[in-house]
């Protein structure tokens, strides 16, 4: 087990190295960040001075090696734009995004899994067909459009929920959370719903497919032949077997949402990391982009590890493979 975790972390290190080279070279090719930072009237001498101050006068490889040397010591550089440490910028924005995504994912699992099981149990029933049609809408309508429609309905016509920004927060240690206040929940509701609806639609489809696959299995028929109550067959024999694909997809979607909740965050002016990433790419603020992506690789590796550990909790034969 520890060997397994260490292996995973080494793999992550490799991915981070390759990715940081790609991002470095990519942003270098796109353009010169100083042109975004100085006023158009600035003289060439001023530009040169800025380049020197930011270390951009060096060759790309020297810049990269300097970055690596600092990164190993935990320093991911400072934002070209604000001069703040890149890592600090990201960490400040992180709770807002994580909170939004956790609420959205919880919603999608709580809604998607039961509906998916219902649709899988009786595929020909009108209710099941309605669920499946709804799920097609759910993930084919663009995210920003759903967001705008929800704003129209709940914020403009009904006027019951705020349309943008994060609500009142409470500090828990260094982390500011808005899920502990009523105002926070009111602000969270629409963006979480926007993000969660498409995910719920996906969970419905995954759950339905898994249910349809497990139901014809002999062990379900055998469970019926044993005279088990239908609730026991559903909640234990079926559910435990469909959890594996559900957890796989939920894990992937969770990572995806954390790293790229940018559309929803933009529509609702949600002060999360996605907004920070887009702003940094536009201003070619390389330290922030690189630090952000490194954080995300770390996060996704940890997430995959959690998913694998959950597999082991559910699927006994997965435990065996790790032990070998």
């Amino acid at each position, binding site marked *: 087990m520890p060997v397994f975790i260490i292996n995973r972390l080494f793999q992550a290190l490799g991915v981070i190295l390759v990715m940081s080279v790609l991002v470095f070279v990519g942003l270098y090719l796109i353009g010169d960040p100083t042109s975004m930072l100085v006023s158009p009237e600035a003289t060439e001498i001023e530009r040169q001075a800025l380049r020197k101050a930011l270390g951009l006068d060096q060759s790309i490889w020297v810049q990269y090696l300097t970055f690596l040397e600092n990164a190993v010591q935990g320093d991911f550089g400072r934002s070209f734009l604000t001069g703040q440490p890149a890592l600090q910028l990201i960490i400040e924005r992180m709770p807002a995004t994580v909170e939004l995504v956790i609420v959205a994912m919880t919603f999608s699992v709580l809604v998607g899994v039961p509906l998916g099981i219902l649709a899988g149990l009786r595929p020909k029933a009108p209710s099941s067909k309605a669920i499946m049609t709804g799920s097609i809408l759910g993930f084919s309508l663009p995210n920003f459009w759903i967001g705008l429609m929800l704003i129209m309905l709940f914020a403009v016509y009904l006027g019951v929920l705020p349309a943008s920004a994060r609500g009142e927060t409470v500090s828990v240690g260094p982390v500011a959370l808005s899920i502990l206040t009523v105002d926070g929940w009111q602000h969270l509701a629409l963006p979480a719903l926007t993000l969660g609806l498409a995910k719920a639609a996906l969970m419905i489809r995954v759950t339905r497919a898994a249910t349809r696959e497990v139901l014809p299995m002999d*062990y379900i*028929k*055998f*469970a019926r*032949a*044993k005279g088990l109550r239908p609730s026991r067959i559903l909640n*234990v024999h079926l559910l*435990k077997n469909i959890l594996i694909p559900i957890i796989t997809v939920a894990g992937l979607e969770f990572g995806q949402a954390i790293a790229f909740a940018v559309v929803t965050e933009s529509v609702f002016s949600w002060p999360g990391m996605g907004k920070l990433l887009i702003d940094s790419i536009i201003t070619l603020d390389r330290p922030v982009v690189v630090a952000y992506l490194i954080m995300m690789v770390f996060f996704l590796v940890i997430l995959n590890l959690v998913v694998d550990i959950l597999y082991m909790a559910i699927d*006994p034969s997965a435990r*065996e493979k790790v032990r070998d």
Partner: protein
Amino acid sequence: MDVSSMQATATTRQEPLLSIKGLKTHFATRAGVVKAVDGVDIELGRGEILGLVGESGSGKSITGFSILGLIDPPGRIVDGSIEYDGLDLVSMGEEPRRQLRGNDIAMIFQDPSMTLNPVLRIDTQLIETVQAHAEVSTAEARQRARDALVQVGIPSPDERLKAYPYELSGGMRQRIAIAIALINKPKLIIADEPTTALDVSIQGQIIYEVKQLCRKTGTALIWITHDLAVVAGLADRISVMYAGRIVETGITADVIERPLHPYTQGLIDSVPSHSTRGRRLHQIKGMTPSLLNLPQGCAFRDRCERATPECLVAPEPTLLPGGKSVRCWNPAL
């Protein structure tokens, strides 16, 4: 009505444990109606062992599932009656039927690698079978589970209880499935080719042990198989099934030594034995007919060496002395 009181009144009469009359189980598919079971009569006494023999697609498994009420749409019992211990199983509601399943009537499936739930421990799968039918504590149910494993000859049962199915061999898994079937002391067990997926040596052991267990506990058994040789040493009586119908029934020795129906004769001639060593095995000519498109009259007509014009009309079962019954116009009498 209360199931147990109905059974109490039923047992006072001298009735067969199971009586199936004119059972028809059809499947409505897009291509047409598949008549998987099309007129089956079975009578089974208490503690009796019946071998239900037939080739793949003859409807023997569907007959088993029909008894348990485990026919799923598009399948449906369209006609006939199944009476178990005075209870009408066809018209019975789902909840009383559930109470019978696994408690009065148990089933063993063909493929032991598929019947146990892969993500549940063996003890869970045994204990839940007890607790589905009786309000007993988990500790008591666990003790019964352990006893059941001992009964089917599983070494170190305490270790096995904590195992997952993937950790056990095929033979071991089938023993556990048998333990699950026996755990609530049913009056009838339906075994659907339970040894087909196992090694020959394990096959012999399991058949022997199941027979001993049924004799000891007085449990009636329907052993479904395509292999006549398997039931020859096991069953009291044999019913031979072809294309959804029972073509011949009789005492095991009678059926094997003096088969009446040409299909039964064909099956017996196809069994490899010492007397035919070095000779080509007999083969029944032709192929099993599609259940969607059965020939008119006797379904075996096209493959039969004794077919006559009469066979264009489907024969009804003819009862003969000695409890024999045959469905043929030209039986080998």
